[in-house]
């Protein structure tokens, strides 16, 4: 796999940024660009000038001729690309495939980024007249979770503090500094009750992983393969108003149950997880939706350090979307790259390596406000 440095990457264009992830992913898998029969790209791309990024990136990286597709599942586009490539291999048509995520979000101004993402609910009923933003979509979940379960703004801040702690240990992360609860609580209001430090940053970045069939893995003599055990997929209504509650994301519940069933595991078997913490409340809901705890107990998990390294199930010890950054379509692929390193016990620096017992890892990637749900289970 390959993974660019995340952050403000105004120093490179879309293709150059993709190359930073694609070239190492090919080198470490023993393939050359000419060997790749298929590439699935996860990218929203609405902030970049190229409407056909898969084609442009393929040409730049020497992949022309391979089958190509750009997958859209909002913030889960990277996982959608992985599912697409995985399915192509499982069908028997492809023996290997490259999964790439790339996003260059900082090519346009911040209000326009908010505009593009805010439109990504149900434009007609949520944006045209009401100007919903992404922080606002998650804020309505935070408000109901707080009203129903007593979750506090301090609990939300604890998620940010935890993820920044690990982001500070990750040389590829966008925000590599630690923060305090006080700093989160005193940061500027974005969409009440969510403040600046409850929100992930606007980030550029690319990640790539090579998937291959069992046969191809043997042929390539890959020493230490990590296997995709399952990819669970689900969705929820476009209109938030059509959902029963706002204390969780039903698509996460259903995608995770599908993945657990396919992999034949339960949540307690997971050694390490990356969850979709685009906003702090999202991580608390994810603990509950994924079955790491009962509904309403997510805040307790973070209060008691159960998702820290050394806790019951370390979550987002790469900094998460919150500190590592969330280049929309890249995130799902970045999660696979991070968890592959975790499963191989080769995380650098070593201090953010999660201990392995079952060698099972889980990636939870949400598109929109639970519009798209993807849960991937990896095993070494």
């Amino acid at each position, binding site marked *: 796999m390959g993974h660019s440095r995340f*952050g*403000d990457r*105004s*120093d490179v264009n879309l293709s150059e940024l993709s190359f930073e992830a694609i070239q190492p992913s090919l080198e470490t898998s023993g393939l050359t660009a000419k060997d790749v029969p298929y590439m699935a790209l996860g990218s929203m791309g609405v902030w970049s*000038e190229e409407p056909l990024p898969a084609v442009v990136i393929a040409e730049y990286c020497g992949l022309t001729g391979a089958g190509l597709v750009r997958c859209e599942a909002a913030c889960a586009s990277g996982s959608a690309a992985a599912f697409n490539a995985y399915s192509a291999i499982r069908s028997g048509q492809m023996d290997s495939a490259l999964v790439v995520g790339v996003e260059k979000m900082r090519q346009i*101004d911040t*209000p*326009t980024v*908010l*505009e593009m993402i*805010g*439109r990504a609910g149900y434009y*007609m*009923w*949520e*944006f*045209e*007249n*009401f*100007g*919903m*933003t992404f*922080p*606002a979509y998650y*804020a*309505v*979940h935070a*408000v*109901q979770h707080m*009203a129903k379960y007593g979750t506090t703004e301090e609990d939300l801040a604890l998620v940010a503090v935890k993820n920044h702690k690990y982001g500070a240990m990750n040389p590829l992360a966008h925000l590599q500094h630690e923060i305090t609860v006080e700093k989160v609580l005193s940061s*500027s*209001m*974005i*969409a*009440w*009750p*969510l403040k600046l430090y409850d929100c992930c940053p606007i980030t550029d970045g690319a990640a790539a992983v090579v998937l291959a069939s069992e046969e191809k893995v043997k042929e390539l003599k890959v020493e230490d393969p990590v296997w995709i055990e399952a990819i669970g997929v689900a969705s929820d209504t476009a*209109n*938030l*108003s*059509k959902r029963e509650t*706002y204390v969780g994301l039903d698509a996460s519940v259903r995608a995770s149950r599908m993945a657990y069933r396919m992999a034949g595991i339960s949540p307690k078997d997971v050694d390490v997880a990356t969850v979709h913490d685009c906003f702090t409340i999202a991580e608390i809901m994810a603990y509950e939706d994924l079955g790491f705890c009962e509904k309403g107990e997510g805040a307790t998990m973070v209060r008691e350090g159960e998702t820290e390294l050394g806790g019951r199930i370390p979550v987002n010890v790469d900094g998460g979307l919150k500190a590592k950054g969330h280049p929309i379509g890249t995130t799902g692929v970045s999660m696979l790259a991070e968890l592959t390193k975790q499963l191989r016990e080769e995380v650098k620096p070593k201090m953010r390596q999660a201990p392995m017992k079952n060698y099972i890892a889980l990636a939870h990637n949400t598109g929109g406000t639970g519009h798209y749900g993807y849960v991937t289970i990896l095993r070494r």
Partner: protein
Amino acid sequence: MMDKSLSLKSARTLQITYNLPISRTSKFWEGLKEGKVYATTCQKCGKLHFPPVADCGDCGSSEVEWTKLDGEGELVTFTEVFVKPASFSKEPSYIVAIARLKEGVKALAWLTGVEREDVNVGMKVKLVAKVTSDGRAVYEFVAV
């Protein structure tokens, strides 16, 4: 290094305005101008839809009738948007709420005429039609 990043400003700019087709839900938009908020009821399965639809995704029927909503409801959740999208940049901060109406459907709209400090989950609200100063037919919640 990043401070020294060089970039070109693209010479080609784009301004997009979408046409939003409302032929099949025109009664809804006309109703708003008359002070009424309509939902649609599927004539085959009885499902009440809000926002209104011309086709029932639940049973596949396209036989729907208009049902005027009373508007009374109870607030389910809300937020106040401070950092706004580009096209809302001239608006002061606004409260967006989701409420369950007594007919059973929920709606998402601005809650106006009240400060956020006075807004609570569970409070009574009313969904009302409104024509904005720039002539757009919309709907919003007001506290009751």
